[in-house]
């Protein structure tokens, strides 16, 4: 049982820390409310037949071997309360059917195990009824938030987002300094003045991940080179250099606010198209949730891989796979990009053009396994769990025999190098736009 540390101060979230008695008193009413707000959650509570198809589909269970990480058993932690308190004939059938009441210990268990779920949705894929434990996990984390139980790590990110418009807490002067530095780097490398325009009016508003301005700088460079080569005016908004929308994982209000900020910036910069950078769940939030959160909208929402694939297919940019050498590349499908976001074939199309040797890992595409940090499980204090959650991924990568893993999602990028080191896999890793940047002919 390795749980994230809980935040002691929830600001700026609109919730407060509650004592145990108050938590227990409020929990059932909140569950009831969430069941009314999400048909998928309600159906997950009521219709699972316990067929067990999800057992070996879940990397969290396979890696930790903890039965509470079996999707349906994880959901049972809340389902048991639902049966007891909310199901028709509750209480009567409840106890026979394994129903129990809420207790402070149970809520702690929720906190532990719903923060060992990566919300990867692989269980929804294999479930004959499409029961989505990610949706259950999102709802339970929401319930926990309203009961004042949020990881310290997550609150830190929400705070940075509120203050600076990105998860890392990069203010505009630092951003401008970083962009200038990257422009110099590109000039040194290519002899061409390639810009990273900030806050300029342009048709395309590109939303990077803030981690691209700390560790994954080559992703940003790849994007800048691509738009330069395509001759298209683009910009990044200093008010939201963050594709990641952590609200998706645990709080609808946070998600909505992030999304609104995104749309406001697009309006301000007169952008016709928002292009999301290499961030898995951020893409899901923007692509799948915008209409429901702040829609309808008249701005087009695209992923950077859609753009890159289009430019390559139409000959708008030229790439030379030789530049990425003879090594063997494999591709890790970020869950929220593939299963939950429809960016499945584009990255493969791009890869086949920018590298010479590309091998698939098994399973792949919508069947791929999570890196083990999905849904924001990047807390230092649960490192042991994170490594277990990454076990299946490490095995998958090992079997490919590849030298290099392409993982276009900042969470995957933060998690995978640690996993590879832990499991002694001598492989390199980067995003996909990094390789586009290297292969591009300017």
């Amino acid at each position, binding site marked *: 049982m390795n749980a994230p540390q809980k935040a002691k101060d929830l600001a700026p979230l609109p919730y407060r820390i509650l004592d145990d008695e108050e938590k227990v008193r409020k929990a059932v009413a909140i569950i009831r409310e969430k069941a009314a707000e999400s048909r998928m959650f309600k159906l997950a509570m*009521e219709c699972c037949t*316990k067929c*067990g*198809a999800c057992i070996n589909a879940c990397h969290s269970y396979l890696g930790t071997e903890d039965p509470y990480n079996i999707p349906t*058993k994880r959901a049972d932690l809340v389902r048991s309360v639902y049966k007891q308190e909310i199901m028709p004939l509750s209480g009567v059938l409840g106890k026979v059917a394994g129903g129990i009441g809420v207790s402070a210990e149970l809520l702690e268990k929720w906190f532990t195990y719903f923060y060992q779920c990566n919300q990867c949705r692989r269980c929804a894929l294999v479930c004959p009824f*499409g029961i989505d434990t990610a949706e259950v996990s999102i709802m339970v984390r929401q319930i926990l938030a309203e009961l004042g139980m949020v990881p310290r790590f997550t609150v830190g990110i929400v705070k940075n987002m509120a203050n600076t418009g990105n998860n890392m807490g990069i203010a505009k002067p630092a951003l401008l300094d970083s962009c200038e530095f990257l422009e110099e780097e590109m000039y040194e490398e290519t002899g061409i003045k390639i810009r990273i325009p900030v806050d300029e009016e342009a048709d395309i508003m590109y939303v990077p991940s803030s981690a691209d301005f700390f560790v994954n700088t080559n992703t940003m460079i790849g994007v800048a080179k691509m738009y330069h080569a395509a001759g298209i005016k683009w910009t990044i908004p200093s008010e939201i250099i963050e594709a990641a929308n952590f609200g998706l994982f645990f709080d609808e209000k946070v998600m909505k606010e992030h999304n609104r900020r995104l749309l406001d910036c697009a309006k301000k910069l007169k952008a016709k198209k928002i292009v999301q950078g290499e961030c898995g769940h951020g893409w899901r939030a923007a692509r799948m949730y915008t209409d429901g959160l702040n829609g309808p909208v008249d701005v087009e929402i695209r992923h950077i891989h859609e753009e890159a694939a289009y430019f390559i297919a139409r000959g708008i940019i030229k790439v030379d796979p030789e530049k990425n050498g003879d090594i063997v590349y494999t591709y890790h499908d970020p869950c929220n990009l593939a299963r939950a976001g429809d960016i499945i074939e584009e990255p493969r199309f791009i890869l086949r053009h920018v590298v010479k040797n590309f091998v698939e890992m098994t399973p792949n595409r919508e069947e791929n396994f999570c890196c083990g940090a999905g849904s924001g499980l990047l807390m230092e204090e649960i490192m042991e769990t994170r490594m277990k959650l990454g076990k299946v991924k490490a095995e998958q990568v090992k079997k490919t025999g590849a030298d290099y893993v392409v993982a276009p999602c900042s969470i995957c990028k933060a998690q995978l190098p640690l996993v590879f080191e832990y499991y002694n896999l001598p492989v390199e890793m980067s995003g996909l736009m990094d390789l586009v940047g290297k292969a591009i002919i300017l």
Partner: protein
Amino acid sequence: MKHFVVGVLPYLTFLILVFGLIYRIRGWYASKVKYQLNLFPAPDTPGGEILKEILFFKTLYRFERPLWVMSYGFHLGIFLIFIGHIAGIAFAGHQFTLFGATPEQSEKLSFAFGMLAGTLAFFGALALLLRRLSGQVKQVSDPWDYIDLLLILAIVTTGNAMRTLAPVELFAVKKYFADLFSLRPINYELPTAFVIHYFFGQILLMYLPFSKLLHLAGGLINKAIILTGDGKAKLLKL
């Protein structure tokens, strides 16, 4: 007691079943679908995929082949039993005369289909029960999962018994249901085997709307959410 089971309970069962179904399914539809929750790759409309799911149990076939064999056999058996009960009772075994068979041939065919359906359902349920009792699936099962299967096994077993060990005259059953549907009093005896089978059947129907046995509806409603695309065009067709 016997009279209650055949003369009174059926009306109660009917009311509970109908209002139970309305109550439960309305409850599901009252709950919102605020966002696009589909999984990719997803078709623009879920119809085709849903049909494949209903007809072939596509997802299980794709990911859990051994379970698919058990589950598909079991459900196919149940489906045939459902159809068989309606046709077999309405025509008292002579339903195949509609397709040109003689009454004797029809009775034989009816018996054969009954055997097939009853065998599939029985061994299907038994296999599912044994699977549930073993290893991994055991740890996700709760008492009610076993009770569901045992109830179905009881119904199927008594049903099979009525076809083999203690045959029941189909004309008598037909007359009984005609009387029941016309609200005429049931003042005659019915075979004990039939009454037992019928009792368990009614328990199942009353319990159905309030249990996870309604996965046949809930599962499809959920699958429809997962499978409904939003029709947003891709930048590039790949």
